């Protein structure tokens, strides 16, 4: 069964450093998402991406964040200057289409645990 993959599984970085979290969505999916889950809290939407541009972003997704689909398979989340409060599990997800519209059934990757020290 196709699945979403994410690397690395765990990333430790120092405050102020840049990190790139990588995701490989399911190959024929066209809608891509990033979510985060701070330890003990609920999963929060960060950004959605379609047709090589951001379609929606949350207030969390400020200028420190960016997303990119650098090639036909990867989907990345970059945090330019990490803060302690960026420590969280980051999930990538993707959706296929049905009749040209999103199918709404999101497939999640296993997550990257980001620890900012």
């Amino acid at each position, binding site marked *: 069964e196709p699945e979403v993959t994410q690397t690395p599984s765990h990333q430790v970085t120092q405050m102020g450093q840049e990190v790139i979290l990588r995701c490989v969505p399911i190959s024929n999916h066209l*809608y891509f*998402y990033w*979510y985060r889950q701070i330890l003990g*809290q*609920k*999963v*929060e*939407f960060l950004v*959605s991406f*379609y047709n090589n541009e951001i*379609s*929606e972003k949350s207030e969390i997704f400020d200028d420190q964040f960016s997303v990119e689909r650098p090639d036909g398979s990867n989907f990345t989340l970059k945090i330019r200057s990490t803060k302690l409060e960026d420590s969280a599990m980051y*999930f990538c*997800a993707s*959706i296929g289409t049905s009749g040209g519209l*999103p199918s*709404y*059934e*999101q*497939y*999640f*990757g*296993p*997550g990257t645990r980001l620890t900012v020290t």
Partner: protein
Amino acid sequence: AQSVTQPDIHITVSEGASLELRCNYSYGATPYLFWYVQSPGQGLQLLLKYFSGDTLVQGIKGFEAEFKRSQSSFNLRKPSVHWSDAAEYFCAVALTDSWGKLQFGAGTQVVVTP
């Protein structure tokens, strides 16, 4: 305000007993509804979804959920719980004009006792 509410933060259930997890939503229109499960250290796995039609939906691992429009609820049930069902369960909604964005409830932690 638009919201997804899971009133129970934590539920303890005996193995073999039935389980019901509550979810209520507050949106202007009926959203698409989902239940996800997260085992410790794992990602999110889709249990079931409701888009339209039959209000009782069957999912994986023996779970089912019932959509009640009048109560704005989408409660998850399992007739007989197994120890492997111990996990965190999230209710989520997607608005039909939202590019598929999911809004999650706070989650319910399920503990299964022998």
